């Protein structure tokens, strides 16, 4: 850790992992509700558990992105952070706002929460991933602006590298596209059209810039390969990301009332979207093979390589499976979408955050890497979590295919609930695998404390 102010990243990482645990717990609750419908009803109905699960996911990934920025921007810009104090204030505001929102979801019926928080003035609630009350949404904008001000000023007064510029573009893009969540027209088609500007242009647009910048930073530090080479790869990868991803938004505009030409543009461009993820995998393995130093943090290297592979599998392959319009006609709104969602989110954004945390946390605690045994435990955590996500995706894909076959094909298709009863087996298997994932996560956290006292290697 070269700069004092990088220590600001530590609370962000800790909060991120804390919220991650919360997300997985609610995931397990929902997984069980799929098989035992009235579990925890009426205290935590499924839609409330889902709000908590998805909102915790997004908030903990944002915490991870902010922590990563607070760690790598000073090091890239070779200067102290503009205002560590502002960063800490924003940390508490964002954490408190997040926790209050989750408590609000759980403690009060959603309609009451909406009434209490001014949803009648400006209705922005009740949409997937954007269920947050108005004050929380405004709070997110304030925190984001303060955060962007803080790191932008740091870069302005320091060295400007491609990695920090790309990260800034990604984070500024994230804040700008979040503004579309305030636009909620009464025409459902327009509402959905611009809702995707927040969701799709996040996860298949600017977030991939952030993913690329973070991965490039970690790879430079771990492999010691020349910065010029890594940053050239970074630019080509994110060029392909935006070239394919922007018009790729069209694969959400097949069936929501938008004109038919989107079926052609959406299919063609989103079919090309796996290319940048494939390039990222080749990039990661290429850099690690051509490494010029043996970095002691083997676990972080494994995470970096895993990010490439799993994001290509989850976002690329599983995305391509149901992105072409004729296929999507049948898979739209089924468990296939859920399967893609799980592996894509884990493979791209969860893993890149865990890569960053796995690389930066030891440095923040005064050593270049954790001890041998703790790294072994961390690798166990890596494989447990990654393999269980693969199985969850396989089970949901199987459930999805069967659901399509029963509910949408053939001469006398079943009703929704009849079809769901036929795929219960896969939901049981998914729930069990979810517990394996939890074990992996617990191991991951434990590995930071396990047998680390004596391995006090110099930072």
């Amino acid at each position, binding site marked *: 850790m070269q700069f004092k102010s990088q220590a600001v990243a530590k609370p962000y990482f800790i909060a991120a992992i804390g919220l991650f645990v919360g997300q997985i717990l609610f995931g397990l609750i929902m997984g069980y509700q799929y098989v035992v419908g*009235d579990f925890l009803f009426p205290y935590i109905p499924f839609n409330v558990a889902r709000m908590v699960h998805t909102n915790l996911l997004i908030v903990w990934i944002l915490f991870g992105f902010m922590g990563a920025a607070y760690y790598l921007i000073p090091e890239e810009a070779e200067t102290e952070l503009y205002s560590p104090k502002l960063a800490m204030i924003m940390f508490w505001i964002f954490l408190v706002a997040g926790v209050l929102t989750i408590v609000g979801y759980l403690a009060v019926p959603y309609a009451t929460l909406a009434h209490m928080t001014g949803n009648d003035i400006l209705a922005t609630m009740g949409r997937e991933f954007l269920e947050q009350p108005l004050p929380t949404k405004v709070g997110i904008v304030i925190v984001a602006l303060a955060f962007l001000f803080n790191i932008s000023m740091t870069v302005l007064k320091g060295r400007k590298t491609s990695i920090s510029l790309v990260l800034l573009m990604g984070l500024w893009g994230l804040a700008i596209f979040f503004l579309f969540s305030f636009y909620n027209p009464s025409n459902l088609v327009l509402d959905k059209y611009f809702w995707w500007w927040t969701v799709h242009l996040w996860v298949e647009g600017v977030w991939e810039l952030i993913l690329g910048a973070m991965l490039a930073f970690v790879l430079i530090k771990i492999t010691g390969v020349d910065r010029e080479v890594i940053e050239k790869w970074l630019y080509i990868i994110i060029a392909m990301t935006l070239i394919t991803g922007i018009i790729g938004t069209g694969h959400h505009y*097949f069936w929501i*009332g938008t004109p038919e030409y989107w079926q052609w543009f959406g299919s063609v461009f989103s079919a090309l979207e796996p290319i940048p993820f494939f390039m990222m995998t080749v990039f990661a393995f290429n850099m690690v093979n051509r490494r010029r130093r043996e970095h002691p943090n083997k676990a972080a290297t494994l995470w970096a390589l895993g990010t490439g592979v799993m994001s290509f599998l989850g976002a690329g392959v599983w995305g391509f499976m149901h992105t072409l319009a004729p296929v999507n006609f049948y898979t739209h709104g089924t468990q296939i979408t859920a399967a893609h969602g799980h592996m894509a989110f884990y493979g791209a954004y969860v893993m890149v955050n865990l890569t960053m945390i796995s690389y930066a946390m030891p440095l923040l605690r005064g050593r270049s890497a954790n001890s041998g045994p703790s790294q072994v435990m961390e690798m166990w955590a890596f494989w447990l979590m990654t393999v269980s996500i693969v199985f969850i995706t396989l089970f949901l894909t199987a459930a999805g295919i069967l659901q399509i076959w029963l509910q949408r094909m053939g001469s006398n298709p079943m009703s929704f609930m009849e079809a769901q009863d036929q795929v219960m087996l896969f939901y049981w298997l998914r729930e069990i695998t979810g517990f394996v994932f939890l074990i992996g996560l617990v191991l991951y956290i434990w590995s930071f404390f396990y047998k680390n006292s004596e391995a006090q290697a110099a930072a």
Partner: protein
Amino acid sequence: MSETFTKAMARNIFYGGAVFFFLLFLGLTFDTVQGLPKRDHRENITDAVVRGKHIWETRDCVGCHTILGEGAYFAPELGNVYKRRGGDFIKAWIKGQPTGAPGRRQMPQFNLTDQQLDDVVEFLKWTSEINTNNWPPNIQG
């Protein structure tokens, strides 16, 4: 053909490509927004439909159901439920929840007034008449 390829060239391709395709996307968005009125029969958006959408959002129905295929996959698709079941069934179903059947998926009781129930049905009726390029594949949704 020279083999050297500088980072500056890669950066220019990134900027050029991003701006190019974002402009193209804006153009397509302009054309879509222009053409939407002919497809989404927005002239039928009555006050009831607006109130119905507000109820749909403030009860977070999208937390369990999908509408036009988007949302949660825990409960049936409601984009075409009006055609599948009709308004009266929908109102009776909402009023009669939760079923309380052990082990079955439960829908909360939202205690909607009759006016609110009519509004929700109007919203679902309007949604079912959007030209979605004849999705879903069948009435089951």
